[in-house]
């Protein structure tokens, strides 16, 4: 009997020590990183895994190498997750107050809880040292809250309608300048049994872009933003008319059938397989239409784009729906905050040209398209950006998370003809006023 008591005591001891060991391991690892005084280690987290975003991944690594070469006593510790994993990870880390020193965030509504939770460092002092002028006008503002900057935009996307030149030529069509032209094109295509526009509205933001453009052309570039900010009613006649135009497009069979049940990827593949003549998407898809070797050359040659047309004579075609994608943040509670700021500034300056030439990203910093060896479509888009009069940030990004979800649901209902344009506006007004 005694033997067993010893054995059990031993087992309990073993189990206990194992547990202690398992718990303590993480803690010790962290200390090692923080305690070394001479060498500073900057933790950097990004969302471009080697598998799915090879070029992005490589550019980041090159920039880190250059940085470490210039700053021998600083090392960058890299963690990479894919998009959705990244979002989960950052939420979990922030609730444990262990954000990486430098990481990536989305603009406006997404970063609001982080800022109000005091997680992101203010970047204005750094920007005032000259960095501010590097950015395309309007991009930094998307990462501002109450006039304070918390993020450095890396990407900038504008939205266009891309079209298939072969299909247009086949039916003697030319790219439209007005909404009435577009209507004409759609009816010709429908008569010839060609799907005019592919739309994957299960993802909902895709439909939201159509609505936003109608609102912009009919009511001017500020009306939607003002309505979202509560400076104007969402039941403004222009916003109701924009919703009516969307429903007019739906009743005219402008979109592929069953669009509310289709994902954006499906719509995109319809367009890329010549099954639809037009497709609205932002410039993050440009590589698919220019440099991506996985897409047949023949298709890439047949794609062109047009700016969203004027509607009933009103609207400025140089006003765009779009916005910055991800931006860099620096953690407020970072132990190596100065080094982190230095790194993020270095990163921004290196990112612009490299990302556009090697990964086909339209960067948030100013790049001279003419001087670089770029496909024509890129040069045109960069030129459009220079001439842009306005950039309206995606509605669902502007809104807080709860309202954004309601907006997206209403978009789906509007496209599905489940509600009228008036109800659509009224429900928005309710959701915004409930906030």
């Amino acid at each position, binding site marked *: 009997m005694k033997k067993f008591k010893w054995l*059990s005591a031993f087992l309990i001891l073993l189990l206990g020590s194992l547990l202690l060991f398992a718990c303590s391991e993480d803690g010790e690892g962290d200390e090692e990183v923080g305690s070394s005084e001479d060498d500073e280690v900057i933790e950097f987290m990004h969302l471009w895994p080697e598998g799915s975003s090879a070029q992005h991944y490589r550019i980041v690594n090159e920039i880190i190498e250059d940085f470490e070469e210039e700053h021998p006593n600083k090392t960058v510790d890299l963690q990479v997750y894919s998009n959705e994993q990244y979002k989960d990870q950052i*939420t979990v880390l*922030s609730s444990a107050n262990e954000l990486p020193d430098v990481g990536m965030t989305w603009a406006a509504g997404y970063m609001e809880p982080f800022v109000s939770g005091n997680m992101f460092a203010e970047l204005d002092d750094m920007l005032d040292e000259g960095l501010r002028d590097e950015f395309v006008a309007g991009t930094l503002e998307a990462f501002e809250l109450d006039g304070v900057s918390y993020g450095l935009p890396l990407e900038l996307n504008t939205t266009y309608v891309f079209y298939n030149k072969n299909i247009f030529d086949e039916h003697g069509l030319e790219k439209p300048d007005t909404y009435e032209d577009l209507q004409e094109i759609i009816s010709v295509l429908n008569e010839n049994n060609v799907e005019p526009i592919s739309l994957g509205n299960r993802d909902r933001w895709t439909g939201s872009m159509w609505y936003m453009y109608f609102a912009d052309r009919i009511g001017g570039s500020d009306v939607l933003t003002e309505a979202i900010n509560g400076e104007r009613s969402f039941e403004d006649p222009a916003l109701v008319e924009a919703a009516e135009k969307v429903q007019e497009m739906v009743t005219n069979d402008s979109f*592929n059938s069953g669009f*509310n*049940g289709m994902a954006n990827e499906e719509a995109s593949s319809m367009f890329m397989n010549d099954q639809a003549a037009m497709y609205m998407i932002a410039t993050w898809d440009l590589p698919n239409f220019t440099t991506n070797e996985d897409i047949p050359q023949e298709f890439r040659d047949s794609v062109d784009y047009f700016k969203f047309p004027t509607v009933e004579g009103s609207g400025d075609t140089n006003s765009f729906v779009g916005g910055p994608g991800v931006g860099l943040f620096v953690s407020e509670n970072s132990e190596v905050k100065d080094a982190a700021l230095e790194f993020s500034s270095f990163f921004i300056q290196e990112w612009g040209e490299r990302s556009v030439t090697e990964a086909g990203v339209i960067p948030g910093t100013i790049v001279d398209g003419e001087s670089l060896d770029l496909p024509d479509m890129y040069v045109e888009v960069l030129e459009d950006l220079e001439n842009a009069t306005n950039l309206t940030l995606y509605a669902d990004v502007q809104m807080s*998370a709860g309202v954004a979800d309601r907006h997206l649901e209403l978009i789906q209902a509007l496209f*599905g003809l489940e509600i009228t344009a008036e109800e659509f506006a009224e429900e928005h007004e309710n959701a915004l006023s409930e906030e």
Partner: protein
Amino acid sequence: MVNKVMSNKWFIILYLFPAFFLVAVLIFIPLLLTGYYGLMDWDGIGEMEFIGLENYINVVQDPRFWESAAHSFLLALFSTLSLAIYLAIAMILASKIKGADLLRKIYLIPMLLSSVAIAQLWIKVYNPSNGMLNTVLHWFGVENPPLWLADPNIVLYSIFIPILWQYAGFYILIYFAALKNIPDTIVEAAKIDGASPLQVALQIKLPLIMGVVKVTIVLAIVGSLKYFDLIYVMTGGGPNGASEVMASYMYKLAFSNNDFGYGSSVGFMLLLITLLVTIIVRKFTASKEEIQY
């Protein structure tokens, strides 16, 4: 010696401890924490603020929640009803027909696929313009075949079909095993007494495996009430909430709307509802006597 060891309460504790520890840490403590978070106003990132029962009161009054609950219960109903079909298939398979072994394996294949793969497969099947289903309907001269995943009136049923298909193999396997356990002598005796195959199935075999049937009913109902994955991948609860179930609503609130407090309270309600339904179902299906062959 062994008995002496096993009757030592310290040893009992020692042996039970690892499992108990894991279950407590991984299941019960998070469960209680979820209930606790439900009392908070929390965006998942910043500070929590205690707001008492406000979230729970809101859930009870939230029409969206009850709508998604209704969808979950509808799924539970369909899952339970479909058990009858699975049982019939299992009975046919167990009656020594030719190729039963092969068929059993075929039926089991959907269970071996991951939910995401099944979802992708059925998204292709349901594709409104070039999906398999609508292409076949076109051949039969249907002019405007339904928009399976886009029409809010039918999307729920469109999703039920792959869900039921996915679990068919699982229940057939369980019934098959139970039926194989019935001694041949009983069936032989019934046949000699002149029972028809239908009588053998309904009056001999069914009562004998009733215990298993009751367990599968509970499994089907509980599984349906907390169902999430196919719906999340195929429609995300859309269009406009037409295929939202309790679990997808909870996920949306917590992770898309950044409302972890409210999401947690919905999660806790989901637990309470599932628990309540399980207790009720167990009560109704409680067996009075044990079956002995």
